């Protein structure tokens, strides 16, 4: 059965609502340059603008770019050399495969998705309640990227994983955890008006789902027909019925509590039931001492080695209910009832009615994940492009509506979207395709006329350098100081569910040597250093992080405990690694280690002077200061 429209539906005019069609890769003058069709689309524009592509970047720059881009940390000197020494013509492909199979890949690219999922380990907003079980969703995202889970499956699991059939309990857990996507959003939890609270939560879920997967701003239609996009107020309340039939909270009175699933094993559940029964018996009046003792023994036996309940933060179902249109968004001024349904602009005019025994989330999820949905594949490939290049083909990755910007390369976008669908929605296939292109391998050094003509790099005629994100920066420093703990993280929260998140612990969390993705994200709070480097507000989806240059970043790199701890640690490693070598070799070691290139002659002289004059009695302090300087340098901070 198809939920999608037939020929009777009115054609949507705006480009984003027209399904992608197979574009033909254009012929180009410089026919030698293209490696794959991406390059034809890119070069065609470059040539038409009267320019040429940039040269291929030098190998050591490419290695560093690939490591930082895919793993979020620079290569070690050994890794760098092993690539430079590999004379196999497939060396670049081999490197990409190696990086894609590293578990660090999911930690890097899963974090990109967590920006879109507005992931947080606490509620923020008015009552900052802890989400001690949310980390399961975070780790699910990281694992899904590492497994290259087909993205259409990833979509359905996140919107309706709790409703999917599961062959075993592990699968059931995984799918239910995925539906935490809908639960981790920000909510006003202390509201004296439970009706408003329910509607606001549904609204947040509709808006996030629409923007994350389809770049659609459904939220605008809560009060009136969307002014720019083909979404009517009825369409909105058709979706609202689906989310109002979805249960996110257990209790709406102040302070409201989030729903959790207990997915403990049957055996554990039985044991817990039995304990409850026995404890009830023990506390009955007039129980004989002997019996009591026996029962108590039995209880302590049952309690031994009993694992804590396996709780999952995720939505579940309510009895289904269609809702009435709220005129001007006010739930006290109601219009007609709208049956639960999907917006015709994405699912067509003719739709099967929604089931009576389910909210319709599963139908919504499948319609988003359908290859016939004109938006979904385009939105995701554009996100990947944005995260690789720092700029999307559609420069507004979270908004494909009329007020978003149009694609600079519409045919390329369609080509990538269809390739993505043909590859069974494999994200790793897209990385291979993109990174093997000549476009990706261009140098950042290019002639001035191109930079002047195209400062934003809309033509993609060069590599535009971009600053490391806050996590990649912290991880790179810890990694280079040999301090990083590479094991996957669990929850660091100490607060239990329904209790307030403890902000006081943030200063403890940040001392951890785990990768930054594993530090708890707290809404309406956060780590000063991470915030300074544009860590986005986790209350809002963000597929296009800011990259600012502000003085607090400089203060962080000059004065933070991280930078001093790391540079001191590295100075000690450096000392051991460079005994009995000349000072110029010592300098070279450090530059190679941090910047993945040998030192130049001029800088060697300059640094030698620096080391000698920095401190007369404490050489290790001078080397630490030198390491600090390199960590703060533009060459370290930017992906080149």
């Amino acid at each position, binding site marked *: 059965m198809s939920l999608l429209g037939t020929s009777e539906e009115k054609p949507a005019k705006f480009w984003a609502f027209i399904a992608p069609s197979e574009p033909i890769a254009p012929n180009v003058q410089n026919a030698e340059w293209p490696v794959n069709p991406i390059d034809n689309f890119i070069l065609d524009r470059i040539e038409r603008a009267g320019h040429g592509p940039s040269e291929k970047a030098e190998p050591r720059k490419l290695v560093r770019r690939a490591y930082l881009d895919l793993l979020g940390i620079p290569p070690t000197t050994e890794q760098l050399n092993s690539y430079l020494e590999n004379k196999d013509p497939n060396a670049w492909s081999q490197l990409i495969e190696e990086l894609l199979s590293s578990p660090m890949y999911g930690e890097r690219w899963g974090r990109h998705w967590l920006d879109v999922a507005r992931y947080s380990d606490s509620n923020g907003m008015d009552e900052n309640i802890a989400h001690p079980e949310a980390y399961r969703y975070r780790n699910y995202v990281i694992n899904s990227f590492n497994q290259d889970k087909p993205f259409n499956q990833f979509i359905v699991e996140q919107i309706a994983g709790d409703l999917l059939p599961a062959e075993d309990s592990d699968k059931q857990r995984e799918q239910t955890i995925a539906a935490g996507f809908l639960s981790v959003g920000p909510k*006003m939890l202390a509201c004296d008006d439970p009706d408003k609270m329910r509607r606001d939560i549904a609204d947040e879920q509709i808006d996030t789902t629409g923007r994350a997967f389809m770049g659609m701003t459904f939220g605008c239609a809560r009060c009136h027909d969307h002014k720019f996009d083909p979404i009517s107020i009825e369409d909105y309340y058709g979706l609202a019925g689906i989310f109002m039939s979805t249960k996110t909270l257990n209790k709406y009175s102040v302070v409201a509590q989030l729903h959790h699933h207990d997915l403990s094993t049957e055996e554990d559940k039985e044991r817990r039931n039995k304990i409850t029964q026995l404890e009830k018996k023990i506390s009955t009046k007039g129980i004989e001492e002997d019996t009591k003792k026996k029962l108590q023994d039995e209880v302590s036996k049952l309690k031994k080695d009993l694992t804590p309940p396996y709780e999952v933060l995720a939505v579940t179902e309510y009895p289904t209910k269609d809702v009435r249109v709220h005129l001007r968004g006010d739930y006290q001024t109601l219009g007609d009832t709208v049956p639960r349904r999907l917006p015709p602009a994405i699912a067509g005019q003719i739709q099967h009615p929604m089931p009576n025994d389910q909210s319709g989330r599963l139908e919504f999820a499948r319609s988003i994940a359908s290859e016939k949905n004109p938006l979904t594949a385009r939105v995701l490939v554009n996100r990947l492009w944005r995260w690789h290049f720092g700029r999307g083909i559609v420069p507004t990755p979270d908004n494909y509506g*009329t007020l978003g910007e149009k694609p600079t390369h519409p045919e390329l976008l369609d080509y990538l979207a269809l390739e993505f669908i043909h590859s069974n929605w494999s994200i790793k296939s897209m990385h291979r395709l993109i990174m093997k292109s000549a476009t990706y391998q261009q140098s950042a*050094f290019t002639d001035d006329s191109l930079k002047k003509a195209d400062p934003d790099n809309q033509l993609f005629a060069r590599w535009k350098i971009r600053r490391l994100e806050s996590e990649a920066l912290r991880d790179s420093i810890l990694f280079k100081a040999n301090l990083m703990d590479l094991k996957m993280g669990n929850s660091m929260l100490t607060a239990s569910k329904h209790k307030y998140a403890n902000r006081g612990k943030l200063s403890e969390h940040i001392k951890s040597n785990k990768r930054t993705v594993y530090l708890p994200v707290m809404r309406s709070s956060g780590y000063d*250093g991470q*915030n300074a480097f544009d860590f986005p507000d986790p*209350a809002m989806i963000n597929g296009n992080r800011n990259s600012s*240059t502000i*003085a607090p970043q400089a*203060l962080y790199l*000059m004065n933070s405990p991280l930078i001093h701890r790391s540079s001191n640690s590295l100075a000690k490693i450096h000392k051991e690694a460079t005994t009995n070598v000349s000072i110029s070799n010592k300098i070279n070691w450090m530059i190679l280690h941090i910047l993945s290139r040998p030192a130049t002659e001029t800088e060697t002289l300059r640094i030698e002077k620096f080391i000698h004059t920095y401190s007369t009695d404490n050489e290790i302090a001078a080397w630490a200061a030198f390491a600090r300087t390199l960590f703060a340098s533009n060459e370290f901070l930017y992906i080149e």
Partner: protein
Amino acid sequence: MELCLNRQPRPLSRRDMLRGSSIGFGALALNSMLTTESPSATLSPSIAKAKRVIFLFMHGGPSTLDLFDPKESLKKNNGKPLPYDKPRIVSSKTGNLLASPWNFKQYGQSGAWVSELLPNISSITDDLCFLHSMHCSNSRHGGALLELHTGSDTFTRPAMGSWINYGLGSENNNLPGFITINPPSSHGGSGAWSSAFLPPRYGGTMIRGNSKEMKIPFINNPLTDRSKQRKEIDLLNALNQEHLTKHKFNSDLESRIESYELAFRMQMTAPGIQDISAEPAHINKLYGSDEKPTAEFAKQCIMARRLSESGVRFVQVTHRYWDSHGNLRAEHEKLSKEMDKPVAGLITDLKQRGLLDDTLVLWGGEFGRTPVAQGNNGRDHNPHGFTMFMAGGGTKSGIQYGSTDDYGYHAEKNPIHFHDLHATILGLMGINHTELTYRYAGRDFRLTDVHGKVIKDVIA
């Protein structure tokens, strides 16, 4: 040409900007440093009096019925039921009317009523502009606090300090444009000083700690010898300059080089401003930083003045915690004592320095409290009618605008919603609130959303 599809203007490099600007580098804001993003709002600086704001936030919701809004009917009907229905949505169960336990008198030429709890503020009423008809939409701390700070109790939105910082930029190269001193960590937390979807440089910088040690994050260099750090920055500059020769026309790289110099200067400037121990004895006496109950908040108010006079656009100080559900008499007495002298001292000090003319002081909480009792010595949250006051910054002084009903429950005459307050504050700063917009998620957002009217009657 294809490139025309894109709406963004070509970013200027720093050099372009300096060349094109007659004001030169010194006038560029620290946080908006070297960026080309400028708001679309029309500024009318000729009308604007206020250049900066100091917001004295009374967290928890002070009972303004017991401070500034005496009611004869409430006094007469003490213990009787409220003669009309209570609101549909309330946060706690309440009983009958509770008269104010404190006496009121009129003060100054303006004849403003102030209770005996505030002997110092009552002496400066002719400098104040009372807003007796405030109201908001949310009956809980978190919701109302966010509504007061951001205009929304539903979504994450930029704080008013961020909007003002975005609209006007900083006056000082060496300090952030929006600083909040010891803000509440609960009830919205950084939501109350966040830039939300505005570029992060417009967000608030939090100064933590107690009055002994209030400081900007990472401002202290762990190396005791500043000349050592100078050497590091000199080496860094050399490395970065070398790198820049290979990456011409990149304004990010250029501005980052400058950012280290700014940070270094900030490190030298900020501790001076943060060090309030240099204040003379008469100032300490004026604010009450020399005696027990007032010292803590007084020091924060002095810090606020120092930051403000150094050019920080928006400074917030928080005093807490006014949430007297059960112990109104003792709590409000204690809190008033802590707050009264420092607030009056700050306004007097600003006036003496000639700063009050262009500094807008705002005093108030996220809501007021009910005229009906909770238990026998408490009041519940009341978002329907309460008092705030402003001083300086182009407001009319010695006036009382608006009023609540006979019992002080609802704003009755000339009601002022938080949206109207925001519109008025922006207006006082020369910004038309309907024109200060930022495009996000497909629409142009404002501090006042689709609401807000400027209260012209309070503008001088």
